[in-house]
């Protein structure tokens, strides 16, 4: 009987807390959203399952969780904590990104910059709520709507405890782009503005596509050296793609490599959300700030497009500004959907891709700035 009691004491049932159960339900919701609603399934499914795994109570004396010294999960989580995985994901993103839309309409790049205001306004908000400057910087980057960048910066700036909440918040809001953005876009635009048709983008030569990643890297890295790792990998990936001579490497970067890293990153980030470290007042604040960051970023992009329309002859459909948040390509798809809801023959996707990819560069530069200023 004593043996049975001893065994029961070592099982998960004996040590399962209400917090663990709440987190497991959250994990199942994530899995459900991925499968039923198709919300960022590549991310939400591994994260959701990771949350379930991470909330099995630890057994004393056996290294199992991401926080236990010597556990297998700890070694995999090392790639998150040391900021190794995010640059590898950027390599893959670069290898699958086509900058043609941006190269054919450079004024739309500015919308990608405007949407980054969400990062810095949230940074101020986080300071106001009592977060130290380094943690506030990591929280602010959620407004960039870029999961890898958020993880990279939180790993570098914030403590181990905040990486999980920041990553979960960033990926949750990225998955909820089709829910969060449309009301803001409709609120800030008139029907006439949503009906604006933009000039078709020009043809971009292969030579332009090859020169661009090198030049853009030099510009970004020289202006914000802190962004070197992220923009370096992003533009290397793009050069692999556009050079046409390293198709095998580009293929690996945009398929096998990014898939492997996404699985490892998503799963271990999920595993890091143990109720004991995750269910805190700070996490709730991070989620509230993250939602605000996302909304502000969307609004800033739309308003910036409206302001630009005051000065330009060829009008910009302000919906396109919402794609300045760098949730590629979901926010561009949302722009297309909202635009087509008003005019089924208006194709905004290509136009929206320009601020969308500019937003990726912008959020990486913003992360570099925050890392340079707050990282010391």
């Amino acid at each position, binding site marked *: 009987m004593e043996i049975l009691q001893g065994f029961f004491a070592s099982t998960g049932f004996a040590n399962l807390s209400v917090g663990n159960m709440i987190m497991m339900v959250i994990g199942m919701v994530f899995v459900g959203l991925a499968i039923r609603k198709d919300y960022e399934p590549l991310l939400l499914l591994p994260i959701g399952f990771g949350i379930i795994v991470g909330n099995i109570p630890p057994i004393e004396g056996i290294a199992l969780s991401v926080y236990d010294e010597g556990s297998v999960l700890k070694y995999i989580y090392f790639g998150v904590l040391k900021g190794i995985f995010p640059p590898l994901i950027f390599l893959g993103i670069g290898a699958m990104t086509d900058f043609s839309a941006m190269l054919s309409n450079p004024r739309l790049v500015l919308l990608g*910059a405007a949407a980054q205001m969400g990062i810095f306004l949230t940074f101020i908000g986080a300071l106001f709520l*009592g977060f*130290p400057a380094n943690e506030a910087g990591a929280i602010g980057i959620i407004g960039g709507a870029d999961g890898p960048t958020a993880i990279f910066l939180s790993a570098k700036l914030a403590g181990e405890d905040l990486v999980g909440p920041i990553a979960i918040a960033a990926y949750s809001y990225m998955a909820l782009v089709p829910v969060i953005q449309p009301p803001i876009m409709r609120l800030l635009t008139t029907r006439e503005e949503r009906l604006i048709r933009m000039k078709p983008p020009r043809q971009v030569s292969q030579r332009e596509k090859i020169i661009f990643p090198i030049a853009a890297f030099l510009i*970004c890295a020289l*202006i914000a050296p802190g962004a070197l790792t992220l923009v370096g990998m992003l533009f290397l990936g793009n050069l692999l793609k556009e050079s046409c001579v390293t198709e095998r490497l580009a293929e690996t970067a945009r398929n096998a490599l990014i898939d492997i890293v996404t699985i490892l990153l998503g799963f271990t980030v999920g595993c890091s959300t143990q109720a004991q470290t995750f269910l805190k007042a700070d996490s709730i604040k991070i989620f509230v700030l993250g939602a605000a960051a996302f909304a502000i970023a969307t609004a800033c992009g739309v308003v910036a497009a409206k302001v630009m329309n005051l000065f330009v002859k060829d009008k910009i459909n302000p919906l396109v500004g919402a794609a300045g948040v760098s949730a590629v390509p979901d926010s561009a798809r949302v722009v297309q959907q909202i635009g087509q809801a008003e005019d089924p023959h208006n194709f905004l996707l290509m136009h929206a891709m320009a601020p969308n990819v500019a937003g990726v560069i*912008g959020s990486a530069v913003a992360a570099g700035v925050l890392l340079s*200023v707050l990282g010391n």
Partner: protein
Amino acid sequence: MAAALRPTPFQLENITNADGLQIAFAGMAIVFAALIFISLFIVALPKILIVANKILPEAEPHIPVRSAKPKAADTSSAGAEIAAAVAFAYHTNQEGD
């Protein structure tokens, strides 16, 4: 210990003490500067290419060199075509019966 050093929530001094506004304005300025420079470069790129094309004309598009010897895949595809032709003839014959 670390918790004791955390600023008190909901205080405007938290922003000023951490130079929050300066960091935010400088950060935004840098992000805009980087993307404006990129934008200007893209605008100038076609002109740069005109000059570059005079100095270094555009090379022929990269075409992978094909070996004269037919590949195994070619043979198998020919085999598949023959098999399809035989199948078609058989099918037509069966229908005729």
